[in-house]
Structures are given as C-alpha cells and as structure tokens.
C-alpha cells in the first residue's frame, strides 16, 4: 500500500494507515497531546486525500491496534458480518462517503451494511465529512431499541434524567427526578451516577426510584451507573434493575484500566438477560468519550476518534438500549474549546449510528474548557436535528456531584418543540395523560414543570 499524495508539487508520505487516520482528523487537543496529529493544515488535507483512496478491505486488514495485541480487534474481526462486508469491501473511503450521502441510500440500506463495518471504517469516513455531512447521514439512521419504552423512532428525541447527588441522599435524588419528569424528561432512563460505588447503595437507589416510577405509572427505565461488578452484586441483593451500565474504552488496555474485559462484560450481559427487570430485549447502557484511552496511556499511537469508534465496536456486541458519548467531560486536554466539542459530538453520534447503535450524547463542558453556554445550547439543537436518540437532563444543566455543565430539564422540551420531536411513544402517552404537554395546542400542559404533581 503506497500512502503518499502530492499537493502543490510537495510529496506527503505516511508510514502507516494508523498515521493517516490520525493526521486526517480535524484539530483536537487530545491528538496533539498524544503527538499523533497533523503538523499543518496542508498535511491534514494530504492525509485525507490518501485516506479517500484506501479501500474498506484495506482498513479491515490494518486495524489501528494489532490483532495479536488486543481482544477487541480480535472480537471485531471474528464477529464481522461477511455478507454485509462484501457489499462495500471494495469501495474506497471516498466512494463510501458518497454512497452514504446519496439520496438513494436510505436508513435501511445503511443498516444492511452496518454489521459488516469495522470501527476503523466508521472513523475513516467520519474524517472525510464536514459537520453537516455527519448530520445528514446520521439523520437517515434510525436505530430502534426496546426496553420498557421504545427508543429511536423517527421524529422522537428522548432524554436521560440525571439526578445525581454528592452524597447519594436518596431524598435529594428523588426530588430532582420528580422535577425532571414534570418537564417531560426521563423517557430514555433515570440514570444516577453514585458517589459511593457499593452494591448496597446501588440497590437502595434503584429500589427507591423504582417505587416512585411505579407509583406514578411512568413508562421508562432506571439505572445506577456504578461499576459493572458492583451492579452484578446489587442484582444478587435482589433489587430491580432495568438497565446495566458500564463505561467502555477502545482498547483492551484501556478497558483493563476501567476494570473490565470482554469476558467480564459477556458474563454481566448474561446475568442481566436473566435478572434484569425491564420488559424489552435491550438491557445494557454504555458510556464512552474521546480521550479515555489516552488518559490511561492505552492508545497504541492511535487518534481519539478512531479509538472512540472502537468503543462502539465493543458496545454493539451487547445490543444495548443506550450508548452515550460524554463529549466534553474529561477536559480541555482532549477537547479544548467549543468547536472541538461540537465536532466531537457530531462525529461520535454519526459513527455510533453508522455502526448500528442507539446513540445519545451528553453535550457538556467542564468549567476549564473554552466553551460558552450559548455554544452548548447550539450543539443541543445540532444534535437534535441530526436525529440524536437522547440527551441528558439536569436541573439547569448543573451536575452538583461531577461538577460540569450539561443539558437542562428546560432544554429538552425547548429543543423538542423547535424541531417537532416527541419522547418515546409510551412516555408520550403518559405525559399527555398527566397534562404535562398539550399537543393539540403545541404547548406545555397544566402540569408542566409541576414536580408536586408527581407523587413522592
């Protein structure tokens, strides 16, 4: 494979496909930190020009982390759908981009090839796309999944209520959750990040949330985002658990730093299929985010977009109900400012949808990143327009435990109304019955925002 291109009579050569993939990325502080980014804007275009002529088969043959070194690479190779792969294997990345953008290529056609794509292919085509390209293709991909509610239908946008509390005060969590429900949020999941990673507190929080949801007849799912081993112990304590959560990384080494492996996740999924309390076939919830592999020095010289795609390659094995990229959570050393965070959100959503996942995004920044509140609000609309399956929802977007800024209880109905979106059909019916939204007049109903109307 010859990896070179000439721009204005200067020849740009690259040693490996991994280097081409990294240098084709738009600027990201995390790629600079890893020392893998392009040295100039011209070199970046050169890398893209080389990448445009690489075939999908060549990408399959050259994973960014070698087969011998990484169980995720091996799992993807062994489980790839050969029929789906054969349909597109001889296309170059440039041709694949055009095929995805063609009007004739609808969501069903994309779904037909999805299982034949490796993460590296999704990452490669992502690098040749502008933000609006990413949105155009992602909006075609409808990934519909089912637990107690049905997520991802066309015209729907869901949300996770995230009622975190710095000391896991259950009363405090429930107050926050009730208010979220009153704003029509929480149809994807009620998901709590616990301060204390113990089975007892996981079970306690789940049981308390379960009781309030049942009492009010709310059709949704619950989840406490402790470590997967802690949740398995909580299941043994006999608590309800609609979704099981875990953070994923894009390499075996990165996952080791998270305390997980393929074998452990297989075991967790098996247990959840038997013991989980939700009604549908999809029962897992994963979170990812660009930069997680580098932060544990587990990146193998690859760029953070490609490594993020590899998280999705891992996630799809478990037919999850939710996958969520926590875009700006780690900090400016990976995504420096508003443009980088915006771009990363659209990239991750696109790659996840292309690989067949029900992608949501935590559109967020930490207070040491250079992103303004207005930029963050714009990103929520971009994600909604791109067909993002769900966003987060917190009181004024402020996570009082994790100290970062995300989407608010007020933002979800605002974005839905702007874009003509509705929550999951099950939750929608509940919301109308409760008078939270009045669709006949397209405006908030009498119970909108009235948390006291949700029984404690």
């Amino acid at each position, binding site marked *: 494979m010859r990896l070179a291109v000439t721009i204005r009579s200067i020849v740009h050569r690259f040693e490996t496909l991994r280097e081409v993939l990294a240098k084709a990325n738009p600027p990201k502080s995390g790629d600079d930190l890893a020392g893998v980014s392009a040295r100039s804007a011209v070199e970046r275009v050169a890398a893209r020009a080389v990448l445009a002529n690489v075939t999908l088969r060549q990408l399959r043959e050259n994973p960014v982390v070698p087969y011998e070194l990484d169980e995720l690479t091996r799992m993807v190779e062994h489980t790839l759908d050969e029929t789906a792969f054969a349909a597109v294997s001889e296309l170059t990345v440039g041709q694949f981009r055009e095929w995805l953008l063609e009007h004739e290529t609808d969501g069903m056609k994309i779904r037909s090839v999805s299982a034949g794509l490796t993460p590296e292919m999704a990452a490669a085509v992502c690098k040749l796309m502008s933000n609006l390209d990413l949105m155009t293709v992602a909006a075609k991909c409808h990934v519909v999944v089912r637990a107690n509610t049905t997520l991802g239908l066309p015209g729907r946008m869901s949300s996770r209520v995230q009622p975190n509390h710095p000391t896991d005060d259950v009363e405090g969590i429930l107050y926050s959750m009730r208010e979220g429900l009153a704003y029509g949020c929480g149809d994807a999941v009620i998901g709590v990040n616990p301060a204390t990673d113990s089975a007892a507190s996981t079970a306690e929080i789940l049981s308390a949330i379960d009781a309030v949801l049942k009492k009010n007849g709310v059709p949704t799912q619950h989840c406490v985002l402790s470590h997967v081993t802690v949740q398995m112990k909580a299941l043994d304590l006999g608590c309800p658990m609609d979704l099981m959560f875990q953070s994923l990384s894009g390499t075996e080494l990165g996952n080791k730093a998270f305390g997980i492996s393929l074998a452990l996740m297989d075991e967790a999924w098996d247990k959840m299929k038997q013991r989980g309390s939700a009604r549908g076939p999809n029962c897992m919830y994963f979170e990812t985010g660009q930069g997680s592999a580098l932060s544990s020095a587990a990146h193998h010289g690859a760029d953070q977009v490609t490594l993020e795609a590899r998280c999705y390659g891992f996630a799809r094995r478990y037919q999850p109900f939710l996958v969520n990229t926590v875009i700006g959570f780690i900090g400016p*050393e990976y995504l420096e400012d508003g443009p980088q965070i915006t771009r990363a959100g659209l990239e991750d959503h696109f790659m996840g949808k292309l690989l067949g996942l029900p992608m949501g995004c935590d559109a967020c920044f930490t207070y040491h990143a250079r992103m303004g509140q207005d930029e963050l609000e714009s990103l929520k609309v971009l994600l909604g327009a791109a067909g993002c399956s769900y966003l987060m929802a917190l009181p004024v977007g402020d996570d009082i435990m994790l100290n970062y800024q995300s989407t608010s209880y007020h933002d979800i109905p605002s974005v839905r109304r702007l874009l003509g979106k509705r929550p999951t059909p099950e939750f929608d019916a509940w919301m109308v019955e409760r008078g939270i939204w009045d669709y006949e007049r397209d405006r908030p109903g009498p119970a909108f925002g009235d948390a006291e109307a949700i029984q404690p």
Partner: protein
Amino acid sequence: MSRTRQLIDALREELGGAAPMPPVVPLARVPAPPARVFPRRHEGSRYARESAEHTTALLGIGHVGTRYATDVVLQFQAELAVAHAAVATELPDDWAEQNGLLGLHSRVRDHREFLLRPDLGRRLDAASLERLKAGARHGVDVQPILADGLSAVACMQSGIALLEAFTQACLARGLSVGTPVVARYARVWLEDEIGATVGAKVAAILLGERPGLGTGDGLSAYLVHAPRIGNTDGDRNMMSNIHARGTPPELAGERLALLARAMIDQKKSGVELDLSQLAHELGDAARRTHRAPQVRVRLVEAEP
C-alpha cells in the same frame, strides 16, 4: 405570460400581495409576570424550599414558556462567571516570596499550556529542580506542597491556612515536616518528583480543585507514600472540598496528618492502605470519591 408565471402571481396575491403579513394588533399594557426567582434556602416555591433540605440542585425554579425566568438566568450566569474566573486566575510571581515559601514551577510556560498539557504540569522545570535540591530540607517524613492546580483563587484564599494546620498537626504527631513549597502550574502528580527529590516518606500536595458552578474556592489534597515518578492515581489517597462550607482547613489539616501517619506506619498508600481503624477519626479523608455538598447562595442582588 406562461402558465407557471400566472400561478406564481396568483399565489402571491393569495398570500397577501403587497402586505404579506397581517396588520399588527394593538396590545393592552402587558402586566408584570409573577415573580419567579432563583430560590434561597427559605424562599421560593414550596418545592424549592423542601428540596433544598436534601439537595443543592436548583429545583422549583419554575419556567417561562419552556425557558428560565430572568432572575434564574442572571444567577446562573453569575455562577458560571465565578467558576470561569477561578480557572483563569493565576498565582502572582511574588506570591511565594510574600508568604515565605520556596517557589517552584512546573515545566508549563503559560496558562493555556497548563490546561492542555497535564504531562508538563507533572514535572519541575530545571531551575526549580535545582532550587529544590539546594534550598529544601532532605530526608523528612512529610513534604507539604501548596499549589495552584485548577483554582489559584482557592490556593490564595485558604491555602496558607491549610498548610499551617497540616504542618502543625504533623508535628504534633511526631512527624518531621519538610520546607514548605508552593508550585505554580502544578498537576497532582508533581508531588512525585518533589517528594522523591527531597527523599520524603510521604508527599502531600494541597491544590485548587476543578471548580463547579458557583464555586471556585475548594482545595483538594493528595497524599502518596514513597513518592517517585511513575506512581499512578491508585497509589494516592485524596480529600476534596476543603473550604469553609465543606471541610474547613483546620479540620482537614488534622485528618490529613492522620492519613500521613497511617501511610508511614503501614508503609503504603492508595488502594492498599487500610483505613478501617481510622474511619471515624478521618471522616471525609477515609473515602476516595466523596464530595460534600455545596451550599447555594444568591450571587446577584439588586441595590436597594
């Protein structure tokens, strides 16, 4: 005229001709909307009052359409500004000298680089390394390090008080304490190089923590036994939220000294350190991920 042109003209006429919008309807005087305010602990809606007993999440704030009331927007923006200001503030060059501390620098050259290059914030620059070798006491039990971290505001506000309390508490427990230093553009892991250079048994870095909305005055402390370059987070014990509304510096100093004593007695730190005997005395310092709640206050008040 073509058929299409005729249809276009007819359509324009149907859509109002020269007046494409209906005439403006005069409006009676708009009444002032009911007051919807960012709640204080004992004000605002009933839900705001009740929930404030259990959480600092901003609840019961009402809505205007689907958006926030003006007062909520202003308070929110003020909280955001406080957090951003805390991150942007830098330690003055002469701050170390004014406070009688040995001043050190990481390898970071400016504030932007500090945010983008955590690796450089974990190592001393050459001049600082020399200064430390020449000017600091060697072979001590505990090396205290004050640092800016992600909030120089917190460092300047309560850093000296915490350093004093920690030093006195260590001495009271029979531990020798190294020359107090203050490090600029410092990340947590900088304690490894500083502690190793002076041959301390335990290195303790006290630094400004990542600000939250409306806060920027919290300090965190990270202690490590046998400091050396290459230690990871699992080798450390930490305590966060050190400020007047969380754990006050005096109490934090006591607990951190107890933690240092335990590390020296057990010759280890981090996940392997057994704190079960000390849990009660240590309070917050015995946990690894805990963060105490902040109290929410109004930041914007109109002049009477």
